[in-house]
Each structure stands twice: as C-alpha cells, then as structure tokens.
C-alpha cells in the first residue's frame, strides 16, 4: 500500500476526519425558532438544521444530516464556531468561511476566526467538493435569516 498523494491529505485533513467520526452538536433539539431542509441535488446530500436564537445570541444549532465526510465535518465545525456567538458575529464567520471556500485555495484563512474551519482550505482546491463543505453553512444562513425576518430587533443582520 503506497502513501496517499499530498492532495488527498490536504482534502482529508486529520481535523476533518476527526469531526467526521465524532461530530459536534449532532441531532435535532428543542427549542428552536426556525428549521430548514437543504439538499445538494447533484449528489443527494441532505441536512435538516434548526437554530435556537435568544435575543441576539445563537444558543444552539442542531442538525440531522446525511452525506460525505466533508459535509458532515463541516456541519460539526459550524456548530463549534457559531453557537454562543451573536447572530451578527456568526454570519461574519460564515462570510469568511464562504470566501475561503470560493477562493480556489488562494485565500489565506484567519485561524483566529475560523479555528478548525481552516482545515477546509484544502477542500477549496477541489471544486467538486466545495458544495459539500458549504451545505450546512448555507442552511445555517437561511435559518438565521428566517428568524431575523420574523424578529424586528434583528434587522441589521439581514
């Protein structure tokens, strides 16, 4: 058995495989203010995601997902990075994650903001897998915007 190519290891970083095997915050929980279901039609990956927002604070992101290691690990990292933050700050993290994923490996991620999320920088070099990494994040954005839409106090985040 020869060693894997460097490319493969940049895609499947240890951190990603750890999150895949031991996902954080998995499962659907109450209470929640909005629930969304997102599908990646090309591969069939699916996620049902709930957000519980208290005032400005993201209290919980819970999810039930089927999909590849990249999409599963990404949901786990999402949970780590946005729970406990304000909606505004959570969406700011999302913007950085999104920019990194769209950057074709050219965007240098800020580890202070993205923490374990920087492991996905390697995924950005595999265009076919970018959508896997973004599935849960897009679901999160949709869910918080739905909460914000129903809450006059949160207009500035929309």
């Amino acid at each position: 058995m020869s060693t894997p190519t460097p490319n493969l290891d940049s895609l499947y970083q240890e951190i990603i495989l750890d999150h895949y095997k031991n996902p954080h915050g998995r499962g659907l929980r109450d209470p929640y203010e909005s629930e969304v279901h997102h599908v990646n039609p090309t591969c069939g990956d699916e996620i049902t995601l709930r957000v519980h927002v208290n005032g400005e604070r993201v209290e919980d992101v819970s999810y039930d997902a089927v999909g590849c290691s990249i999409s599963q690990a990404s949901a786990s990292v999402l949970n780590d990075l946005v729970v406990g933050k304000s909606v505004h700050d959570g969406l700011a993290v999302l913007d950085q994650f999104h920019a990194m994923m769209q950057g074709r490996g050219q965007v240098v991620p800020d580890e202070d903001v993205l923490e374990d999320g920087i492991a996905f920088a390697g995924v950005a070099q595999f265009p076919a897998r970018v959508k896997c990494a973004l599935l849960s994040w897009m679901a999160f954005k949709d869910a918080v915007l739905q909460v914000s839409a129903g809450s006059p106090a949160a207009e500035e985040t929309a």
Partner: protein
Amino acid sequence: MSTGYDVERIRKDFPILERRLSGDLPLVYLDSANTSQKPQAVIDAIDEHYRWHNANVARAMHVLGSEATEGFELGRTKVAEFIGAPSRDEVVFTKNASEALNLVARVLGDSGRVGADTDVVITEMEHHSNIVPWQQLTERTGASLRWFGITDEGRLDLSNLDELITERTAVVSLTWVSNMLGTINPLDVVIARAKAVGALVVVDASQAVPQLPVDVAALGADFVAFTGHKMVGPTGIGVLWGRYDLLADLPPFLGGGEMIETVTMQRSTFAKPPHRFEAGTPPIAQAVGLGAAADYLTGIGMDNVAAHEREITAYALGALQEIDGLTIVGPREPIDRGGAISFTLEGVHPHDVAQLVDSRGVAVRAGHHCAKPAHQRFGIQSTTRASFYLYTTTEEIDALVEALHFTKKYFGA
C-alpha cells in the same frame, strides 16, 4: 476471456484510454454507464464532417447541403439497421434519451391516449428520466401513476403483474437494464401482459442498446428510447424508435422548422415521421458520429460485446464481494445482469470512496445515479457505482479492488 475477443486490441481504438493522470497513473475508466469513451473511428467521422461536409440539412440546395443531408440521413439508416428497425422512418433523433422519453409522454397525452380514466405503469428502478415525464403526464391528464416494486435481490417484483397492468392501463414504461442495480428485466413477460390488455409499451434502453444485441422488431414494444453517448457515440443525440403506424398517428412534439408540411398564419400541417418529431436544426454531426458508432459496434459484434460484459461483470462481482464491509446493491449473481455494479462500503460515504479511488486513477460514480427511488427502496442515500464496457479489463477491476482496500485503510474503516 471469450475466444477471439481481444480487449487489448479494442483498447487501442480508444485514444483516451492511453491517458496518464497526475503522478503518471494510468486511467482506469469504470464509469461507462454514465458515458462511454469514443473510438478513433467516431472521432474521425465527426472531424471529417466538420472539415468537409458541414452545412445545414434538408434546406440548402448547394453541394455541402446535399452532402450534410446525406450524412445525417445515413446516420439514421445505420441506427435503424443497428437496432433491427423495420423502417428507417421509425428512427427519430432527439437530443438524448430523456428528450425521447419526454417526447413519447407528451404526445401520448396530447393524442388523448392517456386520459383521466387510465393508468400509467412504471417501475421503482427507473432512472429519473423515466419517472418525471410520467409524473408530469399523469398530473396534466388526471391519469393514475402506478409502479412495480423491487425485490430484496434487486429484481423487478412481478408478483402483482396482473393487478398492476389492467384494462385501465394506457402505457407501461420500464427500463430494460437498470443503470443502478444492473438488473436486466424480463421484458417479454411485461410486454406480453401489456399487449394482452391493449397497453402501449415504452422501453428505456439507454443501458441496453450499448451492451446487448437489440432487435426492436422482435422485442414487441411500441417505443424504445436510448442515447448515443453511452454506445461509443457523441453526446447531444438520442434516439426514439417507434412503430411507424403509431408515430404516424401521433401529433408533433415541438413546433418549428423541419417538422412542417406547410405553414400559413392561421395553421400548419405537419411532416410525416420521423421529421414530424424533429423541429429545428437537428444534431447533424452527432448523427454522423452515431452512425460511425453503430458501424464500430457492429464490426466487433454485439454478441461479443455482450459476452465480454457478462464475463467482466462476473469477475467484478466475485472480486468485489471478497472485500469486507462491501455490500452490492442489486443482483449479486452474474445472471440477467448488466455491467453496472452499485455498492456501499461500510464506514465510508460513497463520495469519499469515489474521491479516494480517483486519487489512484480509478474513475467511478458516486451518488444516487439519478435513481433516488431505487436507493430509497434499499434504505440508502447513495452508492458508489463501477460500470464496465467493451474495453474494460480484469486488470482494471483489480485496480479498483486495490483502490478500495486503500480507501478502507485511509478511513480506518
């Protein structure tokens, strides 16, 4: 391998099979059910058409127009001969098999043959392109959509054949060879029942025409749909074969140039089949290429292609089932089975399997293969699929097996 079948010689006809991937890995192409590779003869035919004969068909009076028309219509003749069509006028060119199936569904509805008091019968193992057009048709017309289930083994469940296909049935549409399970369906049983109650039969032969000898005249179906690119031909061309008397009795599909007899501002009358169903500039170079593809396959002999497919599939079924944690979804015996094998590997998602084996140069498909209901039937979201063709070797199956062992090790599965 069967006597006289020289797979190495056949491989030399396909330039892409010499491709080396990054790291100087040889390409192991096991995704032919998705699209097949093209022999030099097909590439040359398309090249020559564009270099020497390119013009629009059936309307230009000049030399090139006449040559292009001749090339295009010769493509139709070759396809008709390849599938045993009694008449070349029974071969309608579409852009792909999906369009061919949509065409039939649309015109059967428009002709009033499918109405509110009728049933349309399909199966759970269909590709989405043989499900969605019938859902749309039954929604438009108020007809009922019914379907055959799948047995645990991955065969068509015909136990309720007589209850599903009844006097109410207007159309039965089913696949000949499943693109996901690999199952070859007993069309004769279904067609006999359909004919007994006066129902029309549509066959999705997208996976069958490339790998089995086909004789539409003997089959007994009313319509047969397939695509060019899975039978070593180009993309952008599909085929609908239909019984001439039926085609002649059906209204047009799309309106436009080429499909008319005469047009006034008030109304139009329509051309005879097949041109009635071919609005606009058709896939000309593609028809030339498809004709060359039919010639190429005929030269090898479809009996030989089918025999090779059976042998390579039997070899792969045996080799794959020796891998711990690998489960084949579909028939596990090489009986009435085509050259597509879908499987799951415990602990590794199919997309990750495909990525990992790709890093070893092995191209397979992962996902739902446009057959979500068939996956749901087995309680799974997706599978990895390896599919074979006339150029596939046992060494390539060995490379897949080696890559799967590597995948398991990488994921600690």
